[in-house]
């Protein structure tokens, strides 16, 4: 789960930079960058969820 989340985080950045290389259309580039940022942030959310899922404060012994 954590590995997948990291792939998402880096993948978002690849999307954003890939948009620059793929086209010169400003709208498409901006769209790719915004989508990439959303994917990266979703990845951070997933990574955090993976940590919280086993958090000690949920009652499991540390």
């Amino acid at each position: 789960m954590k590995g997948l989340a990291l792939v998402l985080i880096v993948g978002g950045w690849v999307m954003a930079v890939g948009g620059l290389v793929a086209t010169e259309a400003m709208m498409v580039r901006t769209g790719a960058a915004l989508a990439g940022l959303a994917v990266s942030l979703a990845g951070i959310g997933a990574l955090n969820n993976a940590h919280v899922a086993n958090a000690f404060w949920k009652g499991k012994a540390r």
Partner: protein
Amino acid sequence: MSKKRGSFAALAVLALLALATPVPADEEAPAVPLTTADLKGVTTPSADDLAKGDPGGSLTGSAADIVMADPKAGLTLADVVNQVGQNRIAINFVWTLVAGFLVMFMQAGFALVETGLCRAKNANHTMMMNFMVYGFGMFAYWVMGFALQQGGSAGITNLGGLNPLNGEFKLSLFGKDWGLFGTKGFFLSGGAYDVGIMVMFLFQMVFMDTATTIVTGTAAERWKFAAFAISTFFLGAITYPLFGNWAWGGGWLSQLGGNFKLGHGYCDFAGSGVVHSVGGLTALAVAMVIGPRIGKFNRDGSPNAIPGHDITMVLLGCFILAFGWFGFNPGSTLGASGAGNLRIGSIAVNTMLAGCTGSFGALLYMWMRFGKPDASMSGNGLLAGLVAITAPSGFVNTVGAAIIGFSAGVLVCLSVEFLERVMKIDDPVGATSVHGTCGLWGVLCVGLFADGTSNYGGSWNGVDGSVTGLFYGDAGQFLAQLIGVCTLVGVIFTLSYVFNVIIDVFVGQRVSTDVELEGLDLPEMGALGYPEFQLVTPGLGRSIEIGG
């Protein structure tokens, strides 16, 4: 009557002629080049006059003080112009060094804020992290961080050119050069043993140290000191310098303007991204790895407030930080003379305004939401405004600065709540929100609010003209800033996370439960911060009585 009319007509004709006929004005006179012979006539105060003292200051500083290459030949034109050039560089050196000294003093502000927001039982440990982050970070930066960041940044004319820093490792992809890291200046040796490079190192080093000290606040009260030392070394040696190179060292982000026609490329005047976002995102990564403090969250996930032990310390620290920020932002011109550097006045005022509106925004939000003007969040609002204006400070006007600061003040409150209530991240000082969230916001604000009036020598990042944001007509600049944000979130966070997981596996990031409950001062540092106090941990029914 007719005589009068005649005189009037004559005057009118003369006036018309005066308007119509080009007067041989001074500007049309051929410029006479100044020669060394002209300098012979320059009088200087006599020895007798100088011997009487100069209470009015009108005699001190004259042609007699210009250094002559050959005193026997007397003062020459070459002496004068060389002195003018050296004076410009000297002014810039002194400006940048003094600004760097101010930024160094911010370490004291961070130490007070973070220690004050922690419990008394961890005061020594938290203060020591803030103290030693200076040494660990600086060592790493001297060994390799500076070279990776600035090793290819030759051409900074404000500091005399920095010509020996002429090595940048680049990849050639898709027909473009992508600068990745510098290759000159390791240990400040070889050609880097240069007066201008020393000034640059000092200034960049204190910036890097600011980024490293952000993490100590988030991980306070549970971070193993050894893990902190290794993590700080990595941040100062690798993570920070990499992004610093991409943004400030001539790396690929700074070249987005030339390579992809995105405004002036990624612009980060004083480091909302390079310093604060890197520090804030690293803090977030460490917070995930290390987990929250015992007692922060209940089993249902609801958070508990764990108040700091000294709010006076916190607010004093905020004031010290605000003072130091006058080095951070105006100092980032790297000079006061020439190349549009007189904008330092505007930058200083923008900095002051954004801090002011930031604290106002946070205070207002907390007052409306919780019925009280919260002191620590007002302090964080001040810092949030300062963090957010750091990148745009050199490119925006005062109205833009005030809006950026106010929005950051509100944003930091929302971010603190989101991280705590939704993500279950425990950040004792709110550093992730102040520096991470508001740092990213500051980066975007360049792309929105830059008004196109700055002119630092006619170009920025090798692109002619002034940095201009979306609201003033350049959508490309906003996209460049967005790419910077994506890089911070996608690459820098990931690097920080992976490295801190490795530390966790091999060293362990977190102290034991017993140590955490007792407080880290004695077990980790060998001495209590407040040995004559009776320290009581509310709700745990435990107390430690030492000395007295």
